């Protein structure tokens, strides 16, 4: 029978991993394609990493030595019907950046929105997605926050067809001033007037969308103490 390491021994190693205590997640979160690919590539060629710079992520084309996928901790809001548009879905997205340590430099902050199968793309122009920055923490609550800066929709090709937004500047601001992090306001709108039958179908689509929507923030950081500027050149 194998023994167990002492709590002290384990604690020392967990600190080395950047953890305060043994994690006890109730279930594993979904792992995005890019993280799976990096791990699989390394497992396929275990010696490949030896001569490479550990602080350059060739899959993402940036420098960084830690990739974090932060889950959305926000909540849904009640949708409002406007004169010409009705809101299919409204949600506050919130990402806790406290896991990013002081010395880490952000090199990527990418919001991923997975809308589930056959929703946004199939309905084409009938649905519109708007993402805006919530300006103040005081708006958190049951009322709908006043959206601030509106982001342009930036969709990039991805194996799973999810929508991606570059939030690097926003995340840097949140990182420097955590009190500014009041989250993001996501709204999916249905345009125009419709008859009863079409409205019923759209309501069904919106309900599905609420169930399948999954948001996460991919954050890549670089620790200068572990990643020296000259390390690539030297290698």
């Amino acid at each position, binding site marked *: 029978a194998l023994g167990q390491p002492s709590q002290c021994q384990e604690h020392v190693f967990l600190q080395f991993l*950047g953890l305060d205590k043994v994690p006890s*997640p109730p279930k594993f979160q979904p792992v995005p394609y890019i*993280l799976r690919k990096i791990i699989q590539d*390394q497992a396929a060629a*275990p010696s490949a990493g030896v001569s490479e710079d550990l602080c350059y992520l060739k899959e993402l084309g940036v420098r960084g030595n830690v990739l974090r996928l932060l*889950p959305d901790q926000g909540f849904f809001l009640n949708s409002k019907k406007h004169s010409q548009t009705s809101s299919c879905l409204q949600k506050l997205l919130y990402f806790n950046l406290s896991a990013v340590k002081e010395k880490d430099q952000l090199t990527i902050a990418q919001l991923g929105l997975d809308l589930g199968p056959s929703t946004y793309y199939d309905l084409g122009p009938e649905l519109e997605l708007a993402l805006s920055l919530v300006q103040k923490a005081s708006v958190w609550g049951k009322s709908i926050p006043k959206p601030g800066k509106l982001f342009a929709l930036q969709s990039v090709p991805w194996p799973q067809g999810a929508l991606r937004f570059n939030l690097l500047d926003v995340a840097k601001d949140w990182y420097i001033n955590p009190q500014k992090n009041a989250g993001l306001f996501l709204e999916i709108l249905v345009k125009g007037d419709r008859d009863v039958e079409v409205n019923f179908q759209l309501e069904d689509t919106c309900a599905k969308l609420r169930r399948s929507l999954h948001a996460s923030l991919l954050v890549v950081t670089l620790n200068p103490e572990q990643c020296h500027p000259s390390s690539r050149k030297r290698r």
Partner: protein
Amino acid sequence: AAIPVPKASCKNLCHRHQLFINFRDLGWHKWIIAPKGFMANYCHGECPFSLTTSLNSSNYAFMQALMNAVDPEIPQAVCVPTKLSPISMLYQDNDDNVILRHYEDMVVDECGC
């Protein structure tokens, strides 16, 4: 002074041994997503003076082995990793963040004295 002939047999000489770290054995499979384990290896064996030049030894190991030969109170040179490689680990923390991090010096590739 004459240097004593070492008693170590070939299989006791410093070399790399296989060691598979299975995260399940540590109970860490509950939070480490991948890999399930990895071949970390370890170094073990003797570093007798007569072989310090052929066992991937440092100059220091040579000098220590030399001193051990003339004064047995000085310990023999030790068998240590001389080349290590990194691995990446994918795990989940207490905030449900999924983290991929590279860790240097996790796998022993070569040993020496």
